[in-house]
Structure formats: C-alpha cells, structure tokens
C-alpha cells in the first residue's frame, strides 16, 4: 500500500500524492485560465460548458446559503473542482488518487476547519462569533468544541476511507479473479468519486453556512 516514491527537498520529503496534487492544481488552473481568455456574448462550445459548470455550482450554493453564497462560492467551488479531478485521477493507470492519502484529506479538512472560523468572524465580528458557543446555554460549550474537532476528523476520514477502500477493493478483486475482472468495481469508483466530492464540498458548505447564518439570526435578535 505504501510504495510512495518520495525524494527529499531540503528537510521536506516530497511524496507521490503531493506531486499528483501539484499536477492537478496546474492542470485545473491552466484549464480555468485558458477557458476564460476569450469570453464572448454568444458562447462557443467550451464557454458553454464552463458556464454550465459555474452556474450549477452557483445554484447549489445559493440554495443552501442564500445570503452569503457569493462570499463563499470561490472556496467551495475550488473544493468541488479539485476533488472531482483528484478522485477521478485514480482511474488513470499508473496514477493514484491523492485523496486516498490521509495527509491530503486532513489538509483539506483543516482548511475547512479554519475557513469556518474565518468566515464566521468576518461576517459578524469576533465577539458575536464567540458568543454562539455559549448559546443556548454555557453548559454546552464543551460539546460545541468537541463537535468542531470531531466533524473535521470525520470529514477527513470519510473521504480517505472511501477512496482507499475502493482502490483496495479493485486490487483485491484483481488478485482473486484476475485481469479485467475489477472493471465493475471501477465503474462504481466513478460514481463514488463524484458522490464523495459532492459530499465533501456540500458538508463544507453547510458548516460554513451554519457558522455564518447562526450569527445572522443572533444579530437580528
């Protein structure tokens, strides 16, 4: 399982999943940059595709967070696009999904953890944000804090466990049944990769919207 090719860059060791992540970042950024160069009023086929993706993401986010949707759209949309590509990269022979590495999913979950507080504080200020930990009663403070950490952990473990178990299942079936036998499992891999990317982004969106909207309700009171 752990045959990561890694080399050292000073005190840091660069693993295979990090290299794949950099490659994906490069490709997605280049695709985004190239597809928005020559925008026209009557879109061509590429522009229609890109606009469709953006509109779909925009609608999904505004359905959950109508007031603050535009503010968190860049973060959530980036998560979605990156995760879809990262989960599907495992289907290319010779490459592994970077998301089957617990370090990568933990890094993403930590990003979500910090951005919840960042957007929460930015929306309503430090004082009111911290006050929501004491509502409805100060007795619940430890539970609020525990839930902050467990949901971050669950976010990381869920994505990692799903991607790793899918690759492992395909490998085990290939060992038991032979060449070409794991193709049905790989089809499941496609669906699961899309669903897991959707779920990760959706949960991040709900956590962010929850942090921002509970503040909003407190402000109106």
């Amino acid at each position: 399982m752990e045959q990561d090719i890694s080399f050292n860059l000073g005190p840091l060791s660069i693993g295979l999943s990090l290299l794949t992540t950099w490659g994906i970042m490069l490709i997605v950024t280049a695709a985004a940059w190239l597809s928005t160069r020559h925008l026209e009023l009557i879109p061509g086929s590429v522009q229609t595709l890109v606009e469709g993706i953006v509109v779909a993401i925009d609608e999904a986010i505004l359905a959950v967070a109508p007031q603050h949707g535009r503010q968190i759209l860049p973060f959530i949309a980036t998560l979605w696009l990156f995760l879809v590509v990262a989960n599907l990269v495992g289907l290319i022979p010779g490459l592994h999904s970077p998301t089957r590495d617990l370090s990568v999913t933990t890094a993403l979950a930590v990003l979500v953890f910090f951005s919840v507080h960042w957007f929460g504080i930015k929306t309503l200020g430090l004082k009111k944000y911290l006050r929501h930990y004491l509502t409805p009663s100060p007795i619940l403070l430890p539970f609020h804090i525990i839930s902050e950490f467990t949901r971050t952990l669950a976010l990381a473990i869920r994505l990692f466990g799903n991607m790793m178990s899918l690759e492992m299942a395909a490998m085990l079936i290939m060992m038991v049944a032979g060449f070409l036998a794991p193709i049905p499992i790989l089809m499941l891999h496609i669906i699961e990769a899309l669903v897991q990317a959707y779920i990760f982004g959706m949960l991040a969106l709900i956590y962010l919207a929850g942090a921002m909207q509970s503040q909003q309700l407190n402000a109106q009171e």
Partner: protein
Amino acid sequence: MSDIALIVLGSSVAAIIGIALGVMLPALAMGKAINSALEALSRQPESEKAVMRTLFIGMAMIESLAIYCLVIILIVLFRNPLLEYIVK
C-alpha cells in the same frame, strides 16, 4: 497455542465479526433513510431537491460509519499496535 497464533486468530475473528456488523447495521439505517425519503417524495414530489440533498448528506453520514469500521479493521489486520508487546 503460541502467543502470535492467538493474536492472529483473535484479530481475524474480530475483523470478520466487526466488518459483518459494521456493514449490516449501516445498511439497515440506509434502508430506513431511503424508505422515508421515498415516502416523502411520493407525498410531495415538488420538494424533490431539498429531500434529495438531505438524503445524500444523511447517506454519507451513515456510510462513513461503515468506513470507520473498515479503517479500524484494516488497522487491526495490517498495523496491529498490540503486536509490539509480543514481537519485542
């Protein structure tokens, strides 16, 4: 029986019972969730979007329980931390 054989026997049995229970109970929970989502859908087809979104997220939550079981079982099978006491 030697200590190592006992450990291997114990962890294999625990892994198989664990994965069986860990798949069975989330499956029941998922069935229940889908069941009530379908009932809600047939009663109010216009609320499809909200129901489907909540259903998806709930299913992911339930499914991650099975994944936690799998992760623990993989640790028990391949990286058993208790082996250290025997192998030392």
